[in-house]
């Protein structure tokens, strides 16, 4: 089955255990204003006009071609305890194609992580459960209203999926992007922590904000709401870390 792919990134070292290749599916049904991969949002190809030349992002790839490219680095996965990560965009929007690939990776003995915002019918999640070794689950806010107004979705669907996934016994790693002005006030954090506790979560990954995607917005001719927002200071990061540490074991990307 073909899939719409934004990019395959070899030698990924920031998305899970070991050396991985990240398969970026193209298309997302949420619109986080801080998103650092704006070129992956539309399902259709887009053109990025960089000063040094234009580049097209998005291509239809056959399952065989994707599988072949992902298995090139198999020796590196094996030695490092790594594997493949499905990311995006939103992988769950192409769950059928993803599940077919996932089955083949599993058969080849390659570890698979799924990096998702979790906003899709549960059937999409379910299709991948048998093949995923871990889920990197994006949790942005515990406020249904904020989720609706800022991100553009129904939080209850994300939470239901999370609940079901956990009850299936899946290995789930909660990843929280630290977005200034959105989820970093003390009350936002308390709400998130309380909610995650209800789900029985004990560990979280914190992803500090960065605006490295601003060049992509410019190349796409889009405005970027976070263009002028500097990354968090060391003090701010440690404040947030401490808040989360009241509830969870915390790891934070440096």
């Amino acid at each position: 089955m073909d899939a719409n792919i934004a990019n395959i990134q070899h030698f990924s070292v920031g998305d899970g255990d070991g050396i991985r290749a990240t398969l970026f599916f193209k298309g997302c049904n949420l619109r986080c204003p801080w998103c650092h991969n704006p070129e992956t949002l539309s399902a259709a190809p887009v053109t990025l006009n960089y000063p040094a030349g234009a580049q097209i992002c998005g291509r239809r790839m056959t399952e065989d071609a994707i599988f072949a490219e992902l298995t090139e680095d198999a020796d590196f996965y094996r030695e490092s305890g790594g594997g493949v990560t499905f990311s995006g965009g939103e992988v769950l929007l192409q769950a059928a194609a993803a599940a077919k690939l996932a089955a083949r990776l599993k058969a080849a003995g390659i570890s698979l992580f799924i990096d998702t915002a979790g906003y899709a019918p549960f059937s999409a999640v379910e299709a991948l459960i048998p093949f995923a070794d871990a889920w990197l689950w994006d949790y942005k806010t515990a406020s249904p209203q904020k989720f609706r107004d800022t991100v553009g979705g129904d939080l209850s669907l994300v939470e239901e999926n999370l609940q079901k996934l956990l009850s299936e016994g899946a290995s789930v790693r909660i990843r929280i992007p630290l977005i200034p002005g959105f989820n970093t006030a003390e009350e936002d954090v308390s709400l998130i922590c309380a909610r995650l506790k209800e789900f029985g979560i004990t560990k979280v990954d914190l992803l500090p904000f960065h605006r490295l995607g601003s060049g992509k917005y410019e190349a796409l001719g889009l405005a970027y709401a976070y263009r002028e927002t500097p990354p968090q200071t060391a003090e701010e990061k440690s404040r947030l870390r401490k808040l989360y540490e009241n509830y969870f074991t915390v790891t934070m990307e440096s």
Partner: protein
Amino acid sequence: MKLYEALREEFTAPRGKFTPAYYRFLGMREHIRAPLPLLRAYGVAGLFSYAGTHIHKNDLIVGCLRGASYVGPQEVLEHANRFLASLGKREFWTNDSHFAPDYAYILTRGLPGLHEDIENSRAVHAADPDRLQTLEGMTVALQGFGRLIANYAAAAEGLFGLDDYDEDRLSFISKNCRALLCAAPSTFAEGLQLVWFCHTAFMLEERGAMALGRMDQYLYPLYAADIAAGRLTDEEAVELLCNTFTKIPTSDVVNICIGGTETDGSTSVNGLSRCILQAVRACNAPGPNLSARISKETPEDFLLACLESIGTGLGYPALMNDEVNIPALLRMGYEKEDVYNYCMVGCIENFLAGQQPAWSDGRFDVPRFIDYVLNGGISTYNNSVGITRTDADSISSMKDFMSLLEAELSVGAAEYCASFNAKNGGIRQDAFPSPFLSCFCRECVERGLDINNGGTKYPSAHGAVLMGVGTTADSLAAIEKVVFTDRAATLSELRDALAANFEGYEDLQKMLLAAPKYGNNDDFADKYAVWFLDFLAGEFDRFRTPDNGRFYIAMAANVQNIYAGRRIGATPDGRKAGEPLSDAASPTYGRDTRGATSTLLSVSKPDYTKVACGTVINQKFSPSMFEGDKLKKLAALVRTYFARGGQEIQMNATSREILLDAMDHPEKYPTLVVRVSGFSEYYVRLAREVQLDILSRTQHE
């Protein structure tokens, strides 16, 4: 301030002009009627005996060139220089520098033992006047070396009671020197002092790139005995090593090899390997060129410690794959025990310490031969000619193109070897003996033969350093794709485009640039790198050096790729005239765009067991790759690359300076990538303020 830091300040203070000819001349004048080979030995003895000593206030291990500056009337110096010049000397091409002594031999025998070995050999060769004279030369040189040590002992003793000199250190120095005059070293400090005296003597002789070799092996027995007896701690060992390494001039390339493999396959890594790594890291200077021999059995903590050292910005050690180098050297016919004991001289050249004459190599640039094939054998950018007489358009297939290229390269390699052999073999070996160097080869002493006159166990080896594998592979892939597959241009159009440096042929240049490139795990281009190495290894292996040694090939032209590139016209890979060739064995800079795993998959395709000399692959990583969890991923990257047959890798952390430079010169850094979770982007595409975000991050790191 640490002792070695204070020493560095003393060491780098300005000093007088180094005048070795003067001291040689003094030694020769005393025996001016001696036959020439012996006269040279007296010169060496004079050099060692009369060159002044200098002890730094912060020295623990002594030996440097600071005292060797003549300050009397200039006429004397000029006379000495003229006389020495009239005698001639060996050059790099005639096996003079780039050597690793057999320190294991010297340390076990010591100065008295060595004299004894030479005496015994004189008795054996009593009927052979030539050998007797050679052995006498060795004795003379070695006696001079003894005086060098005695001079340092006396100098230390003479400094007692002087301001600023620490008496404990002075008596430590004098005790070590005196001990070395009477017996083989019995402590680690004495052993290190003897090694450093030898190295100092080589520097006095003006030999460059003399390697210290496998220090962690030959000094290990002394180190282990001291540690076991409680006479030495690791901290003290590191202090002594730092004190030594600080005295390596920054302009020199002194290779030190740690780690490795025993003949039974187990690892050679020991406590001293770790001390040396720590000392080189602490000194943080470019002089000691550290290499680590890595195998499957290398302990993980040692590999991680190597990577941490690299990540400090030092870039050392270079990592060498034993599982390729050992088979490569075995292929050259050396005995197993010797091969497993290999080290490196210069930057990366494999070497059997004390078992072959000093190293030599030269550059062989390959892209030039493509130019011959395209232009009927006449170079378009320098006055050279090949053998092709075919018009470009009558070459009708890639296969034909490759046969013409192979014919060119075959003649080119033969020309190279003939020219080297004429130079190297053109001197009378017996007229230019190296009596002191010969003492460091057990067989030279036993046989009574000079190092360059059949004394060493194995004959000389010469390295042909092949330049531009990336440029060549990319060029051939571009020709195959654009000319013979897509038929988008003819060979004569390509030829004209290159002659015009692509002016007026911009579209063709674009197509050539878009063709598959080496370093992206694409066989279309990678197969030409495999061919490059196979074919040229075979060609050079057809020739022998004047003493019947091998021509090795090397894939290691750093820096020279920039100079060679300046002289070479446009190439079919889309490279414009004057731009650098691809460096060493690496893909062309900026064209391996798929990430480190793909680069290393490509680079490990050729069969490096045919590269006996050595290979250099340069890879840059962001500083965060050398931290915490990611360091282990880097170790896995190296192990996988080595398991697939990679020969060498040297890594660098992208420094703050590079990030700053890339802000102003984005064209120089097309592949500098920034990675964070779920995201990667080329650094040069980021807005200035975002680049500053990254800079402020690396400041913390």
